[in-house]
């Protein structure tokens, strides 16, 4: 069946997160970006919304709701509509938790989930992104070499959220011709976490760090999914879909900001909204936001049903990456010189969109 209908529960969640995005996230966004800071009470507030723990079974300390990638995608669009940096901060712990839920062994879930699903903010995060041009998450340069009883990891990871406080990292590495993921504790020997947070174009609210893995030893039990290995491709697909959701939220924010602005701003004796050059730009932007969203939903729905979602996730990610940036870029144009200043949020959304489009990893749905 083809259906674009939300469940009642999804509708309620969307409403609640939208309110949170408007009331809490948006007002914080500019300061957090300017100062690259993330208030602790914000993290705690988000934590209490239960984004990370809701879909975790009660036995592991969660709330036992069904795992639903479509629900997370909807929530993530709303959060990113508030601010993409804060949205990534809010969802980064889920990246690790979802990976365990979807691909972890029973032992891994029992060992790690309760500690990550308490009443206080806690996190493990994904370590997927790598430095260097043309990085390809499906062909990591970081390597895992089997040795008796475990593996040795070598390489560099970038854009790892919460390097400053995560208790665990899920490191994606090449294991012979496969891709595999490994649970690495922050105090593992051979792991160096960049002392300073990275300085990037966008998503500045969330602290992201570089990890150096210099012969980090992990045990057999630390390979995601055990010796058979988890489906790391599917893990990367959930990440692509998540980044695409964020791009939908960012692009929608830009359109919704520009519409009233264009109706207000007068040039040559009439509102610029009455000029087709502006009106059409926004009509096309709105059109693309819709198109992007349905691709994201399609990918999320395939993931939720356990189907092969690699093509659908690629399409959502690639299309949203391109069009989300285009919409945000138009957002600046609609505001003209004012859009170029940091008085208005459109330049922030533009930086967010540019940054989101080149990541893979970092968050998941």
């Amino acid at each position: 069946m083809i259906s674009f209908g939300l469940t009642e529960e999804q509708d309620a969640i969307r409403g609640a997160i939208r309110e949170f995005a408007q009331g809490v996230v948006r007002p914080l966004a500019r300061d957090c970006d300017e100062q690259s800071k993330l208030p602790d009470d914000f993290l705690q507030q988000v934590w209490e919304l239960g984004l990370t723990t809701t879909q975790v079974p009660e036995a592991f300390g969660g709330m036992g709701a069904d795992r639903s990638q479509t629900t997370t995608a909807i929530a993530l669009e709303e959060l990113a509509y508030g601010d993409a940096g804060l949205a990534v901060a809010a969802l980064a712990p889920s990246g690790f938790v979802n990976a365990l839920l979807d691909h972890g062994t029973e032992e891994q879930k029992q060992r790690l989930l309760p500690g990550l699903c308490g009443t206080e903010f806690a996190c493990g995060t994904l370590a997927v992104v790598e430095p260097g041009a043309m990085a390809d998450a499906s062909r990591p340069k970081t390597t895992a070499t089997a040795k008796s009883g475990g593996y040795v990891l070598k390489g560099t990871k970038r854009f790892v959220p919460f390097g400053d406080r995560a208790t665990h990292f899920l490191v994606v590495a090449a294991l012979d011709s496969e891709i595999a993921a490994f649970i690495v504790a922050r105090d593992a020997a051979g792991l160096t976490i960049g002392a300073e947070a990275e300085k990037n174009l966008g998503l500045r609210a969330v602290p992201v760090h570089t990890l150096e893995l210099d012969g980090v030893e992990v045990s057999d039990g630390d390979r995601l999914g055990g010796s058979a290995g988890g489906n790391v491709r599917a893990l990367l697909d959930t990440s692509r879909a998540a980044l695409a959701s964020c791009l939908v939220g960012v692009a929608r924010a830009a359109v919704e900001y520009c519409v009233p602005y264009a109706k207000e701003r007068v040039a040559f004796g009439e509102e610029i909204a009455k000029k087709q050059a502006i009106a059409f730009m926004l009509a096309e932007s709105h059109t693309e936001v819709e198109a992007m969203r349905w691709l994201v939903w399609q990918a999320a729905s395939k993931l939720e049903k356990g189907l092969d979602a690699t093509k659908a996730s690629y399409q959502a990610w690639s299309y949203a990456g391109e069009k989300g940036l285009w919409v945000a870029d138009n957002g600046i144009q609609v505001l003209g010189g004012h859009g170029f200043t940091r008085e208005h949020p459109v330049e922030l959304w533009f930086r967010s969109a540019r940054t989101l489009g080149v990541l893979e990893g970092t968050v998941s749905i």
Partner: protein
Amino acid sequence: MISFELSEYDRAKLDAIKEEGLICRKYARYYDEHEETEIPPDELPEAKDFAPTPNLASRQSEEDSGPSVMAMLYTVYRCWGDYAVKLRQPKAGGLGNAALMAAGTDEQKQRWINNFLAMAITEPGCGSDPSRVTASAVLDEETNEWILNGEKIFVTGGVRADGVVMWATVDKSAGRAGIKSFLVMKGTPGFEVAKKEKKLGIRGEDTATYVFSDCRIPRDQLLGGNEEVQKKGSGGFRGVMKTFNMTRPAVAAFGIGISEAALDFTREELEKAGVDLDYGAGMGNRSAVAEKFMKLEALHEASKLTVLRAAWLADQGQPNNMESSVCKAHAGSAVREITQGCIDILGPLGVSRDNLVEKWMRDCRIIDIYEGTGQIQRLIIARGLFDYTRDDLN
């Protein structure tokens, strides 16, 4: 619940349509090349061996898609076969029939429904702005007849149609409110098919010019029967325009079907050439050709989903005016890019008339033009966004 998987029953219906489509495709080039002398028959010879067209609206379970969604997918895969050639051309299938169903009285519907009715709005002097229609209708009170005068161009199916719903003004000073639609059957004195157009694409579908000179029709052939001209507002105009809320997604669906055929052809050629389409890889590990093709596929999928979204809203009984324009605007430009891009990838193979890709590119070019150009769709979307009227933004 969000879902994008077709049920088995949905799929079976669409497979049947695709099978028909492949038969139609065999005739596609022929009718493309014989535009001046022939139009496809109402039924192809193979039709007699074929099971009846599955009933689209039927659903076996909750897992099956809604009727509007299925109608759009049906349209997609019919056009995937060929835009103009259909295994069976049900006679009752013109745009005029949609107008009759939307705006006709019960009696009119009963009387005319089994005819193929074209729709004639466009004139030499007006296309995008139908409020400028100059064809006139004057009531002769003595004989109880309307006297029609004027010229209509670009009438789809105008040669093969049994009759037409044509727009004329009963009161030029009243603007939009003075425009009414009239049912005129072929053979009525004063109604003449003056010309058949020669076109870039969709050559198998005839496009005609109609001339009305003192053409008299009975008084009760005014569609909907309301002769009154309201002094304020757009009168019946808005009602008639509503006809287009489901036809715009259908036009988008035409293009989605044709461009999907082009993508399928191109994918096969890439496979033959050993080009690997690795959706999991990063950009650095793909060839430029693979990258380009995969992006065209994504564009196509995005466009298709906007069409299904507009249809799904209709199935829910929700308004879809904006969404109809969104999908028409999106598909209008997407299918141009997709079919032109496939030729880019295919090179000489793409422009050769030994294959259908060059035809598909020509056929797709109409999508952004009729039933409201891409620009007109953008106006509708922008008015929706800004909460503007036609006078605010035009």
